[in-house]
């Protein structure tokens, strides 16, 4: 392995948490202060032009409001003011199909917030990419197959869309290279055990398209198991996953989220301490501590909506802290009351171990990792 790759893997954390790099905020949390989230994961709409089989968003419906450009600008200004460091457009909708998408990325970046996108990438044509890539920390394309016919089956679209996506990824890589941009281009495979046949074709496809990385992750499910993810079956895929990782080379990193896949959907902790550090917002404008709690079913956890209220007012409200405290209290048990392997999982694990004295969070030494504002 070359030194370049060593540096790269040292910096790009795809299966872990960067919470240790925000020790000032951890200390403020310890003191019982109202800390601003380091990262907000959100969407600009709940709608999507795809119909992926693994889509968790199908379980996240709630009262919809429309997030306009004005709403987003107000929100971004508030977020910057209270100290939010990174905002990713991922969450429960395809943000690229919102008219507010491009302007929001540019505005967030201009306010000093690290911006990122998780997308199916279909509408990201070259001209649009040229506008947004200079303002992004990372752009990650969800692609759960390496062959057109399986892509169409798994992601619920026409086969021809697969070829469009491949072209868009090539354009991303090309624009980055030509303009020497710092943005990281990634691919993500949400792996259900029944997509086993696509692990290696996708790893090979990535090697051809030359994004910076391919990450292969588990599929989350709700506490009722509505998506039918059979966590026990991931074990049968370990050899193939290791083989996929062997496709890594200088500048192309294939990473399996082993820690989550091997957890088999289980949590070692019961309290959710991670939410104040990274909250999620629905494409409806709803603020909830976690995407798994977006559905109207979980009304008791809903905090507010940025369409109807200013974000900073919501953040400073008693309601916000009432919900966050509930999750950290004995009233709540993440093992029983949540879906599996949420966004905050690794942060929760670290903070729970920290609380129990099994791990002491201290300021890490060494180089600051990439994407530090996305914990």
């Amino acid at each position, binding site marked *: 392995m070359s030194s370049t790759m060593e540096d790269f893997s040292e910096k790009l954390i795809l299966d872990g948490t960067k919470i240790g790099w925000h020790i000032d905020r951890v200390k403020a*949390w310890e003191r019982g202060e109202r*800390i601003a989230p380091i990262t907000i994961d959100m969407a600009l709409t709940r709608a999507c032009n795809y119909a992926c089989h693994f889509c968790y968003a199908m379980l996240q419906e709630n009262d919809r409001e429309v997030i306009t450009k004005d709403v987003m600008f107000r929100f971004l200004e508030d977020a910057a003011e209270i100290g939010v460091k990174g905002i990713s457009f991922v969450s429960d909708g395809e943000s690229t199909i919102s008219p507010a998408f491009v302007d929001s990325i540019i505005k967030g970046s201009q306010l000093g917030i690290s911006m990122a996108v998780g997308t199916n990438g279909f509408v990201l044509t070259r001209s649009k990419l040229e506008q947004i890539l200079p303002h992004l920390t990372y752009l990650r394309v969800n692609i759960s197959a390496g062959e057109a016919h399986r892509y169409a089956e798994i992601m*619920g679209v026409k086969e021809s869309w697969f070829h469009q996506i491949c072209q868009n990824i090539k354009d991303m890589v090309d624009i980055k290279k030509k303009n020497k941009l710092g943005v990281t281009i990634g691919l993500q495979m949400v792996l259900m055990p029944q997509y086993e046949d696509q692990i290696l074709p996708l790893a090979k496809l990535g090697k051809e398209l030359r994004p910076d990385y391919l990450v292969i992750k588990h599929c989350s499910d709700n506490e009722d198991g509505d998506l039918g993810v059979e966590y026990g079956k991931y074990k049968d895929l370990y050899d193939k996953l290791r083989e996929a990782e062997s496709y890594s080379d200088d500048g192309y990193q294939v990473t399996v989220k082993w820690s989550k896949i091997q957890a088999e959907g289980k949590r*070692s902790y019961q309290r959710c301490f991670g939410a104040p550090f990274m909250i999620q917002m629905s494409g409806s404008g709803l603020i909830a501590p976690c995407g798994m709690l977006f559905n109207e079913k979980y*009304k008791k956890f809903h905090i507010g909506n940025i369409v109807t209220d200013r974000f900073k007012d919501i953040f400073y409200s008693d309601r916000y802290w009432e919900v966050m*405290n509930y999750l*950290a209290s004995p009233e709540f048990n993440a093992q029983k009351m949540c879906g599996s392997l949420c966004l905050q999982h690794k942060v929760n694990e670290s903070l729970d171990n920290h609380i129990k004295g099994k791990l002491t969070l201290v300021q890490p030494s060494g180089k600051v990792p990439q994407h530090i504002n996305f914990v």
Partner: protein
Amino acid sequence: MPDFPHAIDYEQLVADYNTSLNSVLRGFRPKYDFLELWVPDSDPIRSVKNLVESARDQGQQSLSLYFSAAVLIQFDFAALREALKPYGALEDESSAGGKTLYLNRKAANGKSTDEIDPLYIARIMKAFRSLAHQGSILEDGDNLLIRSTKDGISLFGAVHTASHTIRRARFSGTNKTVEAGLLEGLCEIIEGLPIQEAADHGLIKLEHEFRLKPGERGVKGIVNLFNYAPMFDLPRILLRDLYETYVKKTGYRPGDNFYHPSVSQKWKAVPDQEKAAAISGVFAQLLQKKGTPYSGLPLELHVMGIELHHKLNIGIQGDVSPAARAKLFMDFETELRQELDPSMEVFSQNVKDHNAIRRLKVN
């Protein structure tokens, strides 16, 4: 001076004082040392105020006074409470026609001079009044006896080693209100728990249960083990050491903790119709509570189903803002846990995905 553990009967105290005036010639003393500066007054409010000042000047941290029905008709109890506000945090409790008033001194910053946060006083006092777990455990059948000690104060556990469950817990070595009250509460909480669960979450359960109200907090942000009031240090250390003693003695190496309390048999046995009625009753009471964004609103509860005795699927009909509705759901769950069963969970109706494209797959 140690805290005074029992309520002083004010009527009796005055009567004894007056009797002593006639029967004692020299060495006249009130019944309690810390009241040696006190002289009763014909105005009951002024008299009690003097009493509290006397206790304060003698370093008394907390005080419990019982007023019989006969005394209560002589003055306005609310006015007394108002007069005593500057002297500390107050709680009162009605019993047998009378009232007991609990007072705990506070410093100027609102915190107790003895590190008692007013947030916890009422529950500490309540626990202190019935110390059912004070004592030691010398033998307990086949259960393993373990003990931890700090500054002469001990926590005992009798642990069933096959299930690693604490069968009995006791404490000894203190009669102080705060220490004994907290350890009483801790013993009650950890009895019946797996020792790993007690070690992992015993203290946060204690802190949570001892709050004046579940939603009340001592900090603006998140309550966690790093910002508890200092008085929780003693139970924390004793509990930690008790667990470590058990691990040393048995070589116990647990995996992840998956303990979750089950629904009580008592609640399970309640017929469905009665369950629904009880739930509706709690909802009606909640709407009557003042100071909430939904109080007094004409809202209607619809119980759609109760899964596994504790997962309540409900709808609430009526005009209420989304923010107030969300709070109502959370508050309702809290009330149900307090009034009916600690396992209760409240859910609104699940909403299906509205997205036309994604729905193609679902349908």
